Each structure stands twice: as C-alpha cells, then as structure tokens.
C-alpha cells in the first residue's frame, strides 16, 4: 500500500511539474547577453539593467497588463556562432523581441527573424538603414542609429569651431568589424560637405593592441579623434590617448564608448573625455527608488547588483522600458494581454514616447520624445554629448539633444535600404 501511495504521489508531482513547466503564457523576452570575454565589461551592466527593469515590472505591477514577463538569458560572448545558437534555442519559447546588443549578431538575425516573424530592436546599433521600415519590416533601431551618431559628433565639433571645420583633420579609431565600419560612409559624406580631412584607423578584435594606431595619431596630430569602440578596446584606447597626452576634450566616443568602465582605468587622465548619448545619465530618477525596494533589497538583482546608475545600466533599462512600452501598446491595439511576436511588431511600429509617459514610469526627461511609424523605424535620431568628470567620477550632459544632419543621412539610408531590398527581392511597402 505504502509503495502505491508513494507512486501516486510521485505521479502527481511529475504531472504537476509538467503542467507548471510552460507556466501559462508569459511574455518572453530573451536577453542575449555577454558576461564573459573581452566585451563583458560592457555587456554586464547592460544586461543587469535590462533584467532588473523586467524584474521590477514583475514584482511591482505583476508584469505587463497582468501577464508576467519571463526573461531568458543566453550567453553569446559577443560571438556570432553562439548568438545563432542562442537565437535558435530561445525562439521556440515564444520570444517576442530580440535585442542582441551586437551589430554582428544583428546582421545575422535580420534575415532569420524576418523569415520567422519575430521583431528585432537594435537600439543605437545594428544596420543603420533598418530605419527604413518599408524595407525592414521586422527590424527597428529607434531612437538613434550610428549615422546619427557620426553626424552628432561632427555637429559637436562644428559647434566648438564656430561652424567651420574645413581643413581640419579628424581621425576615426574604429573596431574593425561591421560595427566599427558603419559610420565611415557618413563621415566621408560629411567630410565632402564640411571640408575636413578624414583619417581611418582600424583596430582589430578584441582591441588590446593599439600602440601603432595611437603612434600614428601622435605623429599626424589630428584635431579631433572620434572612436567607435566596444569592450576592452575602449579602455585601451582611452589609456593610450592619455599616454600620448592627447587633449581629452577633442576625443569623442560613440555612445558605446562612454561607460564608467571605459574611463575609470585611465584615472584622472581621462578627465574631459566626451561621449555621445541618446538618453540621460545618473540615478536621480524616481524609478531608482522602486528598483532599490522591489529588486535590490529583495535580493532579486541580476548579476552582482553593483551596476545601478551607470551609463550602460541605464541604457539596458531604457531598452527594457522601450520594449515593455511597445508590448503595452501592442496589448492596447489588439485588445489582448497575451501578445504574439506579430502583435509586438505592431506595438513597436505604433510606439510613442511622450514626456507624460516617461514621467509616469518614473523616468521624467530620461530620453527625447519620439514616435515610430512604418516608414520610420528609427525615431528622430536625437543625441547629446556627455563629458566625464574624473574628480566626481560621473558623466554630465554638456549639450542639449540635437538633431542629426538628415539632409545627408536620408539619401544614404534610402540608397542602402533600396540596395538591400533589390538584393533580397523585397517590395518596399507598409502592408
């Protein structure tokens, strides 16, 4: 008898486990993160911010529209092959949206996710011409992209030189990959327009060897250096710039080269280094009180829980916020709380970020307002410049959010997306 009861209990337990396994229909957001390898210093804070914001919504509001969020973390190591494995492993779990935080993996996923009907949001990275939503139906890159970033950097240099930079020499130190090569075409176009001389200095993966590049900078003395770096390359570049005593205020990084982890190793020497950003910095926002009480104090913080308030943590949180707001929009449009990836796409395409919305989320003034439409998957492309204060160990915005040079960028985006459409037999359109 006893064995029978035991068997029955065991069977009940097994069936309970089986039923509890696919716990109803959660909203699944895969987090293709990297906490190992040469890019981990930047991958960890972003992923922590992304997951903590999702945890906050689960703990405080019970998810989105009453449906719990499930974050599936998968380690990619910033490696394309592992990224593909992660995509294949998570897409069957009902993934609503992919944010791979890697331009290489984004290029990989654009055709795959389009064929599978799952949206991709490459926020401030990925393929720039995905801004043209008529060609890239499933890919979004709001609120800003690389070509916007290149233009912001040039605009900032223009503003510092009273609008005239003809004859100046500007160097681009870039990660020798799809990511680092993105801004070259824009910078070349802008160079034709403004008359500066562009100097290209590629740095090979992972970027620990930069002596020769910075020796060249020391010899040729460019007036400004723009950097497209990521991971360990950022720290090395900033240290090398300090070593050759390059004036830090003439050194501007893209938003991916502007985290605390990039400047801290160079100590006081990094004072005055500039980086672009498309959202605000610091932890002076009401949402941080909730994060503290619902997530950190409850012991549910992702990772070591020591990245709160850093630039990339904020960006991860911003990415999660835009994703969940798009999911909310999708729920409203379709009148159901259980959304599918296709509905998620509609929500992203109808996303509007207003001042009231951000204030309601505890993030007043956190980023510029924008709205997404079918023909514009890239938002308004506003960006600002932040400067590092090594004494106070914090970033502060030194400019307002300004627009990019759309006059130059628009034709480039049309040309690149049209070429993609022709190559892949896509008829551009909103249906």
């Amino acid at each position: 008898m006893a064995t029978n009861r035991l068997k029955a209990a065991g069977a009940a337990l097994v069936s309970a486990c089986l039923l509890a396994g696919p716990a109803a229909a959660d909203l699944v957001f895969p987090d293709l993160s990297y906490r190992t390898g040469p890019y981990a210093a930047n991958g960890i804070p972003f992923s922590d911010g992304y997951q903590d914001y999702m945890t906050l919504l689960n703990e405080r509001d019970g998810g989105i529209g009453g449906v719990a969020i499930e974050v599936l973390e998968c380690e990619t190591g910033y490696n394309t092959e592992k990224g593909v494995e992660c995509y294949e492993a998570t897409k069957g779990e009902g993934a609503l949206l992919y944010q791979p935080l890697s331009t290489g993996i984004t290029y990989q996923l654009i055709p795959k996710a389009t064929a599978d009907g799952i949206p991709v949001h490459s926020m401030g990275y990925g393929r720039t011409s995905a801004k043209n939503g008529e060609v890239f139906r499933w890919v979004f890159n709001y609120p800003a992209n690389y070509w916007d970033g290149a233009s912001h950097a040039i605009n900032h240099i223009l503003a510092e030189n009273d609008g005239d930079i003809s004859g100046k020499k500007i160097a681009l130190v870039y990660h020798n990959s799809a990511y680092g090569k993105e801004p070259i075409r824009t910078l070349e176009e802008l160079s034709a327009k403004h008359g500066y001389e562009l100097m290209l200095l590629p740095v090979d993966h992972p970027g620990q060897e930069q002596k020769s590049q910075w020796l060249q900078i020391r010899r040729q003395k460019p007036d400004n250096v723009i950097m497209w770096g990521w991971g360990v390359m950022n720290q090395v570049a900033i240290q090398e710039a300090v070593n050759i005593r390059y004036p830090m205020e003439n050194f501007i990084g893209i938003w991916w080269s502007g985290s605390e982890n990039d400047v801290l190793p160079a100590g006081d020497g990094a004072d005055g280094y500039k980086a672009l950003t498309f959202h605000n910095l610091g932890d002076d926002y009401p949402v941080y009180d909730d994060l503290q009480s619902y997530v950190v104090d409850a012991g549910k913080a992702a990772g070591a829980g020591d990245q709160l308030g850093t630039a990339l943590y904020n960006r991860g949180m911003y990415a999660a916020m835009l994703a969940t707001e798009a999911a909310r929009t999708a729920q409203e449009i379709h009148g159901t709380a259980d959304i599918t990836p296709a509905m998620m796409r509609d929500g992203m395409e109808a996303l509007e970020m207003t001042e009231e919305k951000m204030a309601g989320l505890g993030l007043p003034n956190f980023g510029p307002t924008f709205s997404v439409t079918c023909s514009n998957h890239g938002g308004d492309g506003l960006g600002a410049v932040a400067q590092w204060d090594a004494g106070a160990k914090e970033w502060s915005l030194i400019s307002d959010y300004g627009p990019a040079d759309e006059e130059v960028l628009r034709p480039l985006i049309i040309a690149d997306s049209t070429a993609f459409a022709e190559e892949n037999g896509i008829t551009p359109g909103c249906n």
Partner: protein
Amino acid sequence: MLYREAGDFKTSYREDNQSFPIRFDRIAVQVALVLALLVVPFVINDYWANAVALPFLIYAIAAIGLNILVGYCGQVSLGTGGFMAVGAYATYKLMTAFPEVSIIVHVLLAGGITAGVGVLFGLPSLRIKGFYLAVATLAAQFFLVWLFNRVPWFYNNSASGQISAPERGVLGQAVTGPNAEAWVTYLFCLLFLLFCALVARNLTRGTLGRSWMAIRDMDIAAEIIGVNPLKAKLTAFAVSSFFIGISGSLFFAVYLGAVEVGEAFGINKSFLVLFMIIIGGLGRIAGSLMGAAFLVLLPVLLKNLLVGGFGWPTDLAAHLEFMIVGGLIVTFLVAEPHGLAQLWRVGKEKLRLWPFPH
C-alpha cells in the same frame, strides 16, 4: 561476442582492403548512414540543425581537410581560418556574380579556388618545415584576413564589410538564405561531408596518400625511394585546401548566412580546427569526425545541462564550460596521446578479445 572477425571470410583483394573489415562495424556504419540520411531529415528542427548538426558537419569537413595536410603529410598549418575565408568569399563572389548557376557548383568551385590559394601558400613548405612552416602558414592566415577586410571588391563594397548569402536553392528547395528548411541545409552539408570523407579515404590509401605519408615519416628517405616531394607536398596542400574551402563555403552560405572575416575566420578558427584533429587523432579520417564532434557538441551539451538543466547563471556556466572542456582535453591527451580515434581502436582490439582477454 558480437565483435568478431571469425567467420567473416575475405575472398578477394577488394574485400580485404575495405574500410570496415569487421562485419559488425560495417553494419553499424550502414545503420548510422541510413539513420542520418533517411530518418534524421524528418525529425530535425531548426535548433538541432543550426546549433548542433550544421556546425558539426562543417567543422568535420574542415578537420578532414586539415588532417590530410597535418596528419597524413606532416606539414603543420595554422592557416585554416584564412583558407576557410577564401572559400567563403569565393562563394559570395560566385553567388552574386552568377545567380543562375547551382549552389553545388559554387561550393565546388570555391573549393577549387581555395585549392589554388593553398598551393600558393604551400610553396614555402618546399624549403621549410616543422614550426617554421607553421609560422609561414600563420602569415597566410593574417594576410588573407587582412586582404578580405581591406579590399572592398571582395565584399561588393557593402558599407559594413559584411558578406551575406542571397537565397539559392537546389531542385526548388532553398539551401541558403533565411527561408531554407532545416532538413535541406542538413542534408546538403551531410552529403558534402560524405563526399569529402569518401574522397579523402580513397586518396589516403592510394599512391598519393602513400607518398604523403612517406614525406611525413621521413622526407629524405622518401625522396631517395622516388617520392617527388614537390608533387607530394603541393598536392597535399591542394587537396587539404579544397576541403577546407568547401567547409568555409558551407560555413558562410549555409550555416551563418552572413559573416565578417575578422570574427568568423580569425586565428581562433585555425586553432579550433587544429585542436579537433589533435584530439580526434592525426592521420585518421574517423579522428577528424570525432574531434569535430567533441569540440562542437560538448560545449552545447554542457551549456544545456548547466543553464537549462541546473538553472545556473549563464556566466558561471560559460566559465565552467571552458574549464571542463579544457580539463577533458588534457585528460584525453594524457590517457591517449594519439587521440580519440586511437582510443577507439584500442577499444576495438579489446572488444575482439572480450570476454577472454588472455
């Protein structure tokens, strides 16, 4: 009791020289082939194809190629990644230049182009050997990656420097591109692996293979008995590069669909394939397959076990994975320096005697 030669009579030279002289082996291989060709395509899904099967099949082809050069001919090469890149970029240029030609032809042509490049970089092997040759091939690795990064013609001037495979098919089924079905890509790569394995096996037991092995074992003696070192070394480079080119081509067109040369075909790839043949067994076709399986499947298995099974944090699992795979490599090599293939051979010897080993 099952594993016996007794009663399995060979009555012709042909039978005497077959690849699997023991009946049990023959049946096992035939069953495996039937399973792989007729059953797996019906059950395979996207995950199994893209995360497990394709990388295994493609790396196995690369490992067979490198094994011909290193294992059979004794010429150490660290240029595998560069040669795979030649295969990939050749396929890309062919695919975009001649869209109407079948992808099978493109893959084979890409192998041929890589063979040519391989012969070119094999020329130094006529003068230098051992570690010095390894350094020369290392130069090939860096030169080729630099070349594909530097010259925009190779990537059709795309802004990002990436190459991406357009959709091409065989018999109306898409093989490349995002709409390719899992079973089609699987079968496509499997057939190429079988083709390469068969060709490699038959080359290595013919005149050519014997001249490679003569060069490997002692080049001066080989020359004295009439082996032409120029011909032997350069054919080894050509055949090896042909297979590596095919694997690079499939790696780009079928498996990833979009690559950039620095990341996909860096020095790490050269080391990975070299480790595969060292762990699998130098100078053994089966060793190439075992080594590829070991280094491709084990990390995926460990990840699924640690993260999916135990629910451990992903970073901890990733670090543990390095330690476990590294530890196993050391253990295997200490236990059997000639690799998994030798381990398997010793196992077979024991099986033949079992259960009466004395």
